[in-house]
């Protein structure tokens, strides 16, 4: 029966447009995160400023998506999978917008630290950022593919890896601050960055849990 042509083609196309807009926001914040980390590593102020400038665009898109969701809820009275899709998008858009905000926060740190050379080459933070970025990408992919295996992986292995890295970097940076007072300012900012990246990963698990709900109807904690 599901193979039959839909008799609500207009509504179907509205839902598709909603999904496309969510993916647009996803791509935008993925690029923002990438830019913020690159700006931090390369101490590239111009790039950091470009990331910050995109925040308004991301906020506007998030708002547009929310309005679209509310319109569809009010005007189309969605049920079942359609209702779950809209509920998922409504939640995911907020999570993506927050990832955009964290990217801006990292870009601001990059600007703040741009004047002086780092006390040690950045190796682990870009590695952690790579993991967080991959989680954002994989989460969007899992949304498109309705891939529950990927959802499980994001909420367990991937999130655990980021958490472990966060914990290790915290210890290292704390140790550096205790032994070398002259690096305290830089290290404190790096601690903030690791915290931002850890939160990015958490937002990915939130979205992944909603993808699980969208596909199964079960609202459960997976991470």
């Amino acid at each position, binding site marked *: *029966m*599901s193979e*039959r*042509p*839909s*008799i*609500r083609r207009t*509504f179907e196309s509205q839902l598709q447009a909603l999904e496309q807009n969510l993916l647009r926001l996803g791509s935008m914040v993925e690029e923002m995160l990438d830019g913020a980390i690159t700006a931090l590593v390369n101490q590239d102020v111009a790039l950091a400023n470009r990331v910050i400038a995109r925040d308004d665009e991301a906020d506007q898109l998030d708002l547009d998506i929310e309005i679209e969701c509310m319109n569809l809820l009010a005007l189309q*009275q*969605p*049920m*079942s*999978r*359609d*209702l*779950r899709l809209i509920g998922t998008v409504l939640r995911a858009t907020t999570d993506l917008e927050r990832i955009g905000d964290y990217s801006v926060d990292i870009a601001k740190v990059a600007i703040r630290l741009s004047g002086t050379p780092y006390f040690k080459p950045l190796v682990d933070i870009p590695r952690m950022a790579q993991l967080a970025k991959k989680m954002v990408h994989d989460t969007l992919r899992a949304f498109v593919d309705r891939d529950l295996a990927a959802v499980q992986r994001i909420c367990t292995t991937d999130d655990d890896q980021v958490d472990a890295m966060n914990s290790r970097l915290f210890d290292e940076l704390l140790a550096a601050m205790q032994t070398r007072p002259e690096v305290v300012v830089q290290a404190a900012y790096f601690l903030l960055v690791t915290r931002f990246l850890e939160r990015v990963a958490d937002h990915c698990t939130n979205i992944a849990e909603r993808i699980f709900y969208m596909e*199964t*109807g*079960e*609202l*459960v904690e997976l991470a």
Partner: protein
Amino acid sequence: MVDTNGEVISRGRAKREGMGFTSPDQDRVRTKIQVENLSLFYGNSQALKNVNVSIADREITALIGPSGCGKSSFLRCLNRMNDLIPDTRVEGDIKLDGESIFKKNVDVVALRRRVGMVFQQPNPFPKSIFDNVAYGPRLHRLCSKSELADHVERSLRQAALWDEVKDKLRSSALELSGGQQQRLCIARALAVQPEVLLMDEPCSALDPISTFRIEELMLELKQQYTLVIVTHNMYQASRVAKFTGFFLNGELVEFGLTRDIFERPKDPRTDDYVRGRFG
């Protein structure tokens, strides 16, 4: 959805409890009507196919499905209204409080007093408002003449109509608006003190405000009565019913908690129907 003790169990309750969606008490209810292997034939045509379901006591159960799916035929089986249609044959059983309604000694008039019905089109008698409500109690000699006025008032109050008609009880019922007429029909049905109220598209002829009034009334009535409604309006089912059954081609495809039927139905046919993809 119903275990062997007649208690309704919701799917995945433990998980939803954890999410704060429900409490166990809400999901444990007594069975009022037990339908077992029910098939209905009009001549050679089979209108219902082996339907099994438990109707919960003092809850609202909604039956949804496309036109001709059997939901109204099913409703009419519950108080043997189908007996009035020639060449009708029923297989299986329906038990009201554990007793078969098809037993030889069952008084069908008494059954229909216990299981009342409200129809799609308000159908007041061409009599006064008072006489419409008093009709059943007089016929069944439910109360003395001196008690009749109180009885009528009580029924009109239960149907949320008293305040609007108390000053014109002797006026013709036909002067009332459509929504008022439908509430009068509900008052008339309640006046014979039924246990179950069957409602066949009770709001389809009403405007949205009258519809909301009737829906609010249903939610009040379920404190005392078991309600079964047939509706084309899925949103009405989702607003008022605790349980919903989806009929298709005479088959009860899926039955369960309304929120499950509309949020996460198990059967793809239910999913297509509630999402309006049926076609």
